[in-house]
């Protein structure tokens, strides 16, 4: 299976967007090549701004640019863009509903050897609690490209969460991709896995493993964590009656929590549906090989299989 990092999907898409729309500008904080924004910088040097290692300034410079009609894409490591500059994002970008796109690369454990300080495992939580903010976590390189294109057209603040390491390409150019719409990756009857980012491909692998044991799994890709597709989540939860959430992020406050919020507040969920959550269990990561870390911290197909079996036991 072909593999490519989601950051390159953004990096390539933003160049094409730049050719079509002169209002697109890109800002970086000294991580131009690793965030794949060097392609844009080379093509449009006059529309590329590197503010150095100052993420708080970065967010607000972009805010100012958006107020003059520009469409700024901020390229920075997710931990610093969303963490260090959270209050700037909340008070300046979110509150004023500014058209600023925050592209956080190097999210999750897949950062690998750089270790815990650089592995953003709280960024979905941090961004999704801000009113007006859209949160998109593509499952592969192709979705990252499509998300970049759609966010450029969408008006308002958004966070695009991307990874550093190569990830399997599991969609193709002709697949539908609509912001806010869940996407069925595999149909099944016994349990539903809701996943985002790299965990979508892990969930698909888990479904294959379980198929050998005659367990039929539905895999649903929730690339848009906010606004979340409530209707689809309730529908697929009702269909199988058992749910597993999977994310490369802390289990509290992030994607899984967003799914739980839907399930626990929905009037249409008319039966008990047990949920198991796969994700970081309230701990920090460490240095290691990207996929080695996923295994070490329980974020692979194996753990998803375990979670499915557990949830099936709880299913009434």
């Amino acid at each position: 299976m072909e593999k490519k990092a989601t950051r390159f999907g953004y990096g390539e898409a933003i160049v094409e967007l730049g050719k079509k729309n002169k209002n697109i500008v890109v800002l970086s904080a000294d991580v131009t090549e690793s965030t794949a924004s060097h392609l844009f910088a080379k093509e449009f040097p006059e529309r590329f701004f590197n503010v150095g290692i100052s993420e708080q300034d970065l967010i607000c410079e972009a805010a100012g640019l958006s107020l003059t009609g520009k469409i700024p894409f901020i390229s920075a490591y997710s931990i610093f863009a969303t963490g260090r500059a959270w209050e700037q994002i909340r008070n300046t970008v979110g509150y004023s509903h500014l058209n600023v796109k925050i592209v956080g690369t190097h999210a999750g454990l897949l950062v690998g050897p750089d270790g815990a300080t650089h592995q953003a495992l709280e960024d979905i939580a941090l961004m999704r609690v801000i009113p007006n903010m859209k949160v998109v976590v593509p499952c592969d390189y192709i979705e990252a490209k499509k998300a970049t294109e759609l966010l450029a057209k969408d008006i308002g603040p958004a966070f695009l969460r991307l990874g550093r390491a190569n990830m399997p390409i599991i969609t193709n150019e002709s697949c539908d991709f609509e912001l806010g719409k869940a996407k069925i990756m595999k149909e099944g009857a016994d349990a539903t896995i809701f996943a985002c980012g790299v965990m979508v491909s892990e969930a698909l692998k888990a479904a294959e493993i379980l198929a050998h044991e005659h367990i039929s799994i539905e895999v649903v890709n929730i690339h848009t964590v906010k606004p979340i597709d409530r209707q689809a989540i309730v529908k697929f939860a009702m269909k199988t009656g058992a749910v597993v959430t999977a994310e490369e992020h802390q289990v509290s406050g992030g994607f899984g929590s967003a799914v739980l919020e839907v399930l626990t507040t929905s009037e249409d969920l008319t039966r008990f549906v047990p949920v198991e959550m796969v994700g970081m269990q309230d701990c920090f990561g460490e240095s290691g090989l990207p996929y080695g870390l996923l295994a070490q911290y329980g974020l692979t197909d194996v753990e998803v299989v375990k979670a499915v079996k557990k949830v099936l036991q709880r299913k009434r």
Partner: protein
Amino acid sequence: MEINIKKFVELGKTVRKDIINMLFCAGSGHPGGSLSCVELMVALYFKYLKHHSENPEWSERDMVVFSKGHVCPTLYSCLARSGYFPTDELDTLRQSCSRLQGHPSSVSELPGVEVATGSLGQGLSIASGMAIGFKLDKKDSKAYALLGDGELQSGQIWEAVMTAAQFKLNNLCAIVDNNKIQIDGFTEDIKSVEPLASKFKSFGWHVLEVDGHKYSEIFAAYDEFLAANLDKPTVIIAETIKGKGVSFMENKAGWHGKAPNSEEKELALQEIEEKDLGV
């Protein structure tokens, strides 16, 4: 007094009276810093700023960011007196459903407010981003940011200072209302930001120092910013007095964030009416 100056002295009185009345009606708010920047903002809004109150979204306008957003009574008064909205609305400051939020908000859709501010330290970056945007569009518009001396303790200010110098933003003007007092007391005693002029100079800025309560000096500074053909941003460092114009509020940290009561309001209004400030 020159006729030219007299007009601004009277405008200053009007704005100061608005501030006192607004804060009295609201029952809370920030008189000290609102009063210290009156001359600076009256000169900007009524003499230099390129704007049209009847067309707030005019694409060629200059933009102002009140980075020290807590002094929004001054902003609201300048906007109302420029015709952006009825002056009656000033009495609604800080009240439920008012467009005059306790810190400036663009969500409440008050015409003339470009962006929400109030979280200190962020406004210079925003104005710097605006200045970059103007340059991209080859517009002659200017970006102004009103800063307090206290907020210069914020690291982000100096991030923006470096960014603006790096990108040679000669269409950006920072105005420091150096009233030397923050909530907890004198800036000097808490964490000194001085020497300001040499700090900004060493960061590559064009520095102008003025008496912030003297129109002749303020006008000269704005004139120089607009006329100077430099490749660097400009900062106007204005020596001001917190609470200026109301003697019992002057230089008192206690009046940073406290509204006058009925008696204090009357005393303040009377004093403002009697004194010609700005000359």
